[in-house]
């Protein structure tokens, strides 16, 4: 149908309006950000799907390569240490410079 009809100006794929919710994050304009966040799939299935996508991106980029080095796992472990620190901050902040521990 697109190929058959002739319009005054040629119609490109980029001109067709895409629903905001389906855009990738980097394509969303700042004003549309709230709409985008509100429309994302926040059901448990949706969350698992998002986690799975993130995991697959990391895995295929850093670990599932022919000559992977220690960087892939090292980044994971450093991230784990950082998250543990944040998780325990309320508990650790009492550990500061004390005369008698």
């Amino acid at each position, binding site marked *: 149908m697109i190929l058959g009809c002739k319009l005054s100006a040629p119609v490109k794929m980029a001109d067709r309006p895409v629903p905001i919710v389906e855009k990738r994050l980097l394509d969303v304009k700042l004003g549309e950000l709230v709409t985008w966040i509100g429309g994302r799939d926040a059901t448990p299935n949706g969350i698992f799907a998002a986690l799975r996508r993130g995991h697959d991106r990391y895995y295929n980029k850093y670990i599932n390569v022919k000559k992977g080095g220690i960087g892939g796992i090292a980044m994971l472990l450093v991230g784990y240490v950082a998250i543990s*620190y944040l998780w*325990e901050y309320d508990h*650790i902040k009492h550990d500061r410079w004390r005369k008698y521990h």
Partner: protein
Amino acid sequence: MVLSFFDQFMSPSYLGIPLMALALILPWTLYPKPTSQWISNRVLTLQGWFINRFTQQLMLPLGRKGHKWALLLTSLMVFLITLNMLGLLPYTFTPTTQLSLNMGFAVPLWLATVLIGMRNQPTIALGHLLPEGTPTPLIPVLIIIETISLFIRPIALGVRLTANLTAGHLLIQLIATAAFVLAPLMPTVALLTATLLLLLTLLEVAVAMIQAYVFVLLLSLYLQENV
């Protein structure tokens, strides 16, 4: 708030979720799933090699009937070794320092071996309570002793793992505090303490691996008696 050196073993919570949840889930994310590719990435190859080698080593003394336990024992070993090693990173939480978790591993698995023995070969299982060649007058006493020894096994398994890891972490924290406090006062002594700390950390890495292995090995021995 009064602090003590044992505070590192309290399970901290954030937004109601204890850190132990994250620490227990992390080993699952660290090991990729085997694919049907012929040559996979390095992590997967190493993992496959280690698991194959370990299972072969563990299943040597067990007969065919014991091979049903291969998956359970190997996955337990991988889990424990990962938990122990991850606990050596700074600020992380080691779930295996909690007695509850270790007893949760030890008691059901030990009980399973005992029940398997009692169900399939009750005579042989009860016969283990009396070692061969005991002098006749000693028999009653020895049976009581062996029964007590049998029931102490799960407690020993759990407490061994807990105590080793807890003591290791505590020592690291103590010596690190000592080195840190001594640094401005007596730098040489602080340097010696820091060297001690380095050696202790290496020991802890070894202990982390060995304790996991001992746990699984003893379970396989109990299974060997009973299967």
